[in-house]
Every structure is written in C-alpha cells, then in structure tokens.
C-alpha cells in the first residue's frame, strides 16, 4: 500500500531559531498517527508545513505520492487534506451552521451562485444535511444559530472539527482537538474519530492527553526539539526513556504504567 502522507527530512527555522531539524514522518492509509512532543518542540509547525501554511526551508512533503511542498494551502486542501488549528477563532457575523456549510467548498463561483443550476441545489441540500448531522454529533445543535464567535472556547474546537470533516478529507490533521473540551465530549470525539477511521479517513493528531492518545492512535511519533525521537505503538510510550525524559515526565509515566499493569 502507498503511503498517504510522507514528510521527509523537514528543516525549518524562524530567524535564528531552528524549530525543525530533519523531521520525517509518514501516515499510511487507515492509520491514526499521534504526533506528540513537549511544548514548543515543533508539532504545530510541522503541521503547518504539511498543510502549506508555512514553507519549509528544505525537505519534502508528498501526499499520495505527489509532491505538495510548494503548493499553496488551499490547493492542498483540495487534494484531500483538512486541518484544524490549535487556537481556533471564528467569524462573528456568521452563524455556527453557516460556518459549517461554508466548509463545503464545492461550486462557490459567481455564475453557479447566480444561476443555481440543479447541481448546486443538490449540493446545497446535501451539505445542509451533512452539517446538521455533524453538529448534532458534536453536541453543537443548541448553539447552531448563534454567531460562531460567541460560543465557548471548547465549542469552537468542536466546530473546527466539524468544518474539517465537511471537506470529506482523506487525511485529517487535528491540532489538539480536545484541549479545553469537556471530558464527556472527549469521549464522543474519540468515538467519532474511530468511526471516521472505519470510513477510511486517516488522521494525524497532535494531542497531549495520554488517555486520548492511547484510545485513538494506532501509532505515535514523538518530536523533541525538531527531531523525531520515537515512533512506536502508544502503549510502548511509557517505557521509552527519551519520551519520558522529554515529554511524559516521571509521574505521568508511572501513572500510565500503573494503569497498564
């Protein structure tokens, strides 16, 4: 099977500050890869590079075998790769539902909007149905007619996941999808993501919540100071000395060990 996403030897520095030094990572179809690492190790930056929001200094990003390193961000999305942001901000004069609908980008030209041929009408109906389903699944239905900026921090996180899903991506990249999300809801997100995997959507997830990682991820990659220090199954993490040292810390590792035992 072909690798879905193949990130090779990425280097990236901001001014004199070297953030990524030869990071490589791949995602196979059907995988949910967790991207872990201490704060500031370059996880979000790696995501930015992969999704075209930042340009790497050197290295290559391939998606389904095609080199996408120089494509603009919006083109990459069109290839089937959607992402969310770590700190989501939402428009203030569009409702939650509208933002979700907007995430379906098919047929948004001037002419198709003016003429509204059948294809457009069908796409619209379909999008509306899908959006409602997604919002329902993420418990956003009560706020769906509110301005998207006026919902709480955690709800914004959920909304951005809904938006990413609207694009029906092949690969979903989530930057800390559950930070600030209520534990009960976190459970729902876990289920949603697993269901998506069942539908063949691969995922690359940056996350700090180890419970979540263990439940969702099929493989974990740990980044430290811009380099990959571990690539293993989630349950092997807590016995990996470098990961403990840089990321988990003694206490968390112990706790995890205890639970595993």
């Amino acid at each position, binding site marked *: 099977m072909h690798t879905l996403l193949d990130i090779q030897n990425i280097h990236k520095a*901001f001014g004199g*500050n070297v953030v990524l030094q030869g990071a490589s990572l791949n995602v196979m179809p059907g995988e949910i890869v967790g991207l*872990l*690492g*201490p*704060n*500031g*190790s*370059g*996880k*979000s*930056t790696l995501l930015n590079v992969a999704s075209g929001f930042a340009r790497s200094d050197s290295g290559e990003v391939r998606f389904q075998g095609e080199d996408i390193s120089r494509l603009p961000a919006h083109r990459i999305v069109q290839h089937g790769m959607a992402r969310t942001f*770590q*700190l989501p901000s939402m428009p203030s004069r569009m409702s939650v539902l509208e933002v979700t609908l907007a995430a379906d980008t098919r047929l948004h030209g001037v002419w198709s909007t003016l003429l509204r041929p059948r294809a457009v009408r069908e796409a619209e109906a379909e999008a509306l149905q899908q959006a409602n389903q997604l919002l329902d699944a993420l418990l956003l239905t009560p*706020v769906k007619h509110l301005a998207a900026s*006026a*919902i*709480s*921090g*955690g*709800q914004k996180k*959920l909304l951005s996941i809904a938006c990413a899903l609207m694009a029906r991506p092949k690969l979903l990249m989530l930057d*800390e999808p559950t*930070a*600030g*999300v*209520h*534990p*009960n*809801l*976190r*459970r729902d997100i876990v289920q949603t993501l697993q269901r998506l995997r069942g539908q063949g959507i691969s995922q690359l997830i940056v996350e*700090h*919540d*180890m*419970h979540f990682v263990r439940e969702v991820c099929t493989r974990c990659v740990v980044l430290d100071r811009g380099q990959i220090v571990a690539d293993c199954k989630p349950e092997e993490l807590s016995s990996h000395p470098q990961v403990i040292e*840089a*990321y*988990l*810390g003694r*206490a*968390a590792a112990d706790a995890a060990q205890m639970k595993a035992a």
Partner: protein
Amino acid sequence: MNERSEKDIDVRDVVAGYSAEVDILRGISLTVAPREIVCILGPNGCGKSTLLKTVAGFLRPRRGSIHIRDEDVGQIPVHRKVRSGTLGFVPQTDNVFGSLTTWENLALGGQFMSKADCAQRIDELCTTYPVLARKLGAPAASLSGGERQVLSLARALMPRPRVLLLDEPSAGLSPKTLAEVFEAISATRDKEGISVLMVEQNAMEALRISDRAYVLSIGTVALENKARVLMNSPEMRELYLGGRPH
C-alpha cells in the same frame, strides 16, 4: 467581624451576561477560603470563563455581589484590582502580548514592583519554568501554544497576587509541563499563601491539587464538594468528570 472575612472570594447570587437579553450566569454563589485551591468544572459553554471574567471585573454583575477579601469589588475595574495586588488573572485565550518579547511580558506583570525586585522575580520564574528561559528574547506571538500558556501563568504570578484566577491553565500543556504547572500552583499556594480559583477541563489532574470543586451546569452550580470526594465517587466521575468505562 462578619462571616465574610473568612473568605478570599465570596460570590453571591451573581447574574451576568454579555448582552442585555441573555443571562449566561444565572445566580451563582461560590466561595474561596484563604489558601484554598478551588476548581470549577463543567461542560463547554456552561459559563465557566464568564464566571471568571465577572469575578475579575471584565463583566459587571447584573445582580448579586462579589467580594474579594471583604471588599465589594463588583464595580471596580480590573486594572485597579491588579494594581493593588488583589488579583491575578490568566484568560483562557489571547493570554500573551504577542508583539512584546517574553521578557517584556514578564516585566509588565511586574510593572508595579521595584526594578531589582522585578528582575529577581523573573529569574525565579525562569528557574521554575525553563521553557521561558530559552525564549526570553522572542516575541510572544512566536511562542507555541503551550509556551504561551506557561508564559501567561508566569506573568500573572509576577506580582505575587493574593488571589489568582486561572482559566484552563493546563490546556495544551504536555503531560510533563502540566505536572510542573500544577505542582507550581500548589507550591505557590503553600509558599505564598495565595488562594486560587481555576477553571479546568482536565478534571482528574486538577482535582488532585484542589481542595474543593464546583460543577457548573448552564449558568448555575450543579454540585459542590471536596475534591477528594468527587474524585473517588464513581458515579460522579461518570456524570461530571468524564470518567471512562474501563
């Protein structure tokens, strides 16, 4: 002495909201005793941040009263409270000065201290949070999500406030840093005798260092209890804290 003087924070029947039509907080009462760490839990959008903002003074309560250390602070603007050393506040988002460097962010936190004192305090915090030491000269906008979180906490701690309001201090922190941050919060409480009111989604970790907790639900208090009780009761975990079926 009236009963209030026992409390560092005393919120009584507060009603507040952003627009005139909608109340987000619908009559909330809570207290924080001196040297106590109190945790607020609750689903997304139930009004936790709003509560914190109201206590800090960004929103005026429509009804009810807010006392901090015996002083009625319902109508006092935030900056006055911070200046007088009453209060430290870490917002949930947008919690650093992006165009200023890390050092300047900290220095702003200590702007009402003497120069020497301020420099010393920055050194202290940098030893506690080595992440910051590495980034002192970088503009805060360039920091990663977790680094910002640490920075904003450190900034609030600069003037050694007596009461600290934290909105999800652990969001986006790596497990190791998270442990360090919670460790530091409870250490600060022990060393400096401050009281802390914090909002958390990371319920299990947060309860570990808290004394008491409130669970909010749509703008009202649904439950209040000792942290230890909450942690150890399976049905409460199931209902409110996202305990997982194993």
